[in-house]
């Protein structure tokens, strides 16, 4: 038996209430009944006294002891009186049973008047009531009343209990039990007993059924929604997983949140290793240009729009350089900080293609030196970028002597070989930051950065000329020495724009060609003639 069950609770409550009522009411009624009974008994004694009053008065009037004795004896015959006496003229003229002193009780007494003069008191009739008996009777009577009441209350309580059980507790308990066995979604409903159709229990059952229906509908909707979400998720996950582009989420500080397989494949980062050490800076780990990547991330966070760039990623030291195009987009601000989505795809091939195109556009295909356009734009750029009164540039125009003869005598291949060799020598003799270009035919252009003083330029020119003393094997076993004429002009001393500097270098070179060949000359603006300085041979 479940102590918490409804009808046990109700039963206990009703029983407790009934007990309470019984105790209270029986106490009250016992008291009242006792008092009533007691008062009745006292009244009986009083009436008894009144009955014998006339006779007692006669006895007291004439002082007749016999009559007085008869009266008191008669009185003590009653069981509610234990003693009686008649007093006349301060003298007891009749007494029977216990005296006041024995019983230690209060007397009940009445005045005796003269039979022929109501105004004259002739004595007193006093009795000792049987208080113990009176009390006992009063108790019995009161007890009977109380027990009767208690029995009545008990019967009423029992009836109430049965009614409550029948009308409320049992149907509720049944309802609860049936509801307990129903799982929302199994389609079961509660049925209403005819007895409760229309009352609160019926209403409750109906409401529960309606609720069950609503819950089932909602569950079904939820199930379908979940199914759709699962489908979508599968699709998106497929896109994410199968994408050839590396997709990854990073925090502002560069720690990786998640990434797809393509990301790990592209970057060569070990996925399992990455998951163990979550706090690494993945940006620094992946990108060679990580500072640029981090600044892109910051930029996208500040502007709240995607930013992209081609970035190099770290590879094994011996592996070729690899490029990715990377787009950073701010995703959302969470409690852990801002998150950025990155999408990267391999653009190494495109980069290489671009490189080739640029080379084609800028390089001389034979010698690998810059071509005319590249050289001209480089010169222009250098001059434009040069601060006023800053560094000096030296422009050297070089023309090979006897190239036409070699070309005509030994063929184009020999000519090409000469050109390639000269180009390599020139490249070797100047710094990497200096421009070395083939303008076309056998004409070369050098732009020396940080030319310094004229002496230094002359030394370089002399080194170039000296280097041509080594013969070139144009055919197996055929050696030829090639001389060259070098015209030099300085920026900004000999011209403040690329065109004039080149023109003046050109003039200096033609001056060398006309005179001695295999020499160099520096443009001399002083006498408007080409000054020449002939190196000793």
């Amino acid at each position: 038996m479940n102590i918490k069950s409804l009808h046990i609770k109700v039963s206990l409550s009703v029983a407790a209430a009934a007990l309470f009522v019984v105790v209270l009411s029986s106490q009250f009624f016992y008291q009242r009944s006792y008092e009533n009974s007691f008062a009745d008994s006292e009244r009986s004694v009083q009436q008894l006294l009144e009955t014998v009053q006339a006779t007692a008065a006669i006895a007291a009037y004439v002082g007749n002891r016999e009559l007085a004795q008869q009266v008191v004896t008669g009185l003590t015959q009653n069981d509610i009186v234990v003693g009686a006496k008649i007093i006349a003229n301060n003298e007891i003229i009749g007494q029977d049973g216990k005296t006041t002193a024995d019983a230690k009780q209060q007397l009940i007494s009445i005045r005796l008047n003269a039979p022929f003069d109501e105004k004259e008191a002739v004595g007193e009739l006093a009795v000792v009531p049987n208080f113990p008996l009176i009390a006992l009777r009063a108790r019995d009577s009161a007890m009977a009343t109380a027990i009767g009441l208690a029995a009545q209350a008990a019967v009423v309580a029992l009836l109430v209990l049965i009614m409550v059980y029948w009308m409320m507790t049992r149907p509720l308990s049944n309802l609860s039990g049936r509801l307990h066995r129903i799982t929302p979604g199994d389609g079961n409903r509660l049925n209403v007993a005819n007895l409760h159709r229309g009352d609160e229990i019926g209403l409750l059952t109906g409401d529960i059924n309606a609720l069950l229906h609503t819950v089932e509908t909602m569950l079904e909707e939820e199930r379908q929604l979940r199914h759709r979400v699962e489908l979508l998720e599968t699709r998106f996950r497929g896109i994410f997983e199968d994408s050839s582009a590396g997709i990854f989420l990073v925090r502002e500080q560069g720690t990786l949140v998640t990434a797809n397989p393509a990301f790990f494949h592209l970057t060569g980062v070990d996925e399992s290793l990455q998951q163990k050490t979550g706090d690494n800076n993945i940006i620094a780990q992946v990108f060679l240009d990580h500072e640029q990547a981090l600044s892109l991330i910051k930029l996208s966070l500040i502007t709240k729009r995607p930013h992209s760039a081609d970035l190099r990623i770290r590879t094994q030291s011996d592996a070729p350089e690899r490029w990715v195009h990377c787009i950073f987009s701010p995703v959302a601000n969470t409690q852990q900080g801002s998150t950025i989505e990155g999408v990267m795809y391999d653009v190494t091939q495109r980069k290489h293609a671009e490189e080739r195109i640029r080379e084609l556009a800028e390089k001389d295909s034979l010698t690998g030196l810059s071509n005319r356009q590249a050289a001209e734009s480089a010169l222009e750029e250098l001059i434009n970028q040069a601060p006023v009164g800053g560094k000096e540039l030296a422009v050297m125009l070089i023309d090979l002597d006897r190239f036409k003869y070699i070309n005509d005598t030994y063929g184009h291949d020999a000519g090409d070989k000469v050109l390639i060799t000269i180009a390599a020598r020139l490249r070797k003799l100047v710094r990497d930051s200096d421009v070395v270009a083939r303008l076309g035919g056998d004409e070369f252009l050098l732009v020396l950065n940080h030319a310094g003083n004229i002496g230094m330029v002359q030394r370089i020119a002399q080194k170039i000329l000296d280097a041509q003393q080594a013969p070139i094997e144009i055919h197996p076993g055929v050696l030829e020495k090639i001389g060259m004429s070098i015209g030099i002009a300085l920026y900004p001393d000999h011209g403040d724009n690329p065109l004039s500097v080149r023109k003046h270098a050109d003039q200096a070179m033609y001056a060398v060609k006309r005179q001695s060949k295999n020499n160099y000359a520096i443009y001399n603006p002083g006498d408007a003639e080409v000054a020449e300085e002939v190196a000793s041979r």
Partner: protein
Amino acid sequence: MRNLLLIFTLLLSGLMSALPHAEILVIVNASNSTTTLEHKQIVDLFMGRVSAFPNKQPAQPLDLKAGTPERAAFYKTLTGKSEAQVDAYWATLVFAGRMSPPKQFTDDSALIQAVAREPAAIAYVSRQPLPKNVKIVMELSAR
């Protein structure tokens, strides 16, 4: 002197006639030293409460025969009770024992003779001329 007495007698009779008419006379033997009795004393004597005059001389009340109108009038006047009530009173006392009601006589003359003979006697008679050997101790007027 005779004139004076006559005047006094006339005055007295006039006064008497002005008072309520006294019909019953309570009499005792002339030798009795008692001259007058209170109403209450007469009740106590006739109802058996006391058996002596106030002067401690023994007293014996004498009664008329039961059923006479004079007797009923006497008790009615004296105690306010009916003859039957008085008889019941006596019956109670007689039943208890040792007490007896006053001795009864057939008429006034028998009573007067008994009072005249007995020095302790006391009785009541209707208003009438009385012999010298009895004297009035109280006059009762029926109300």
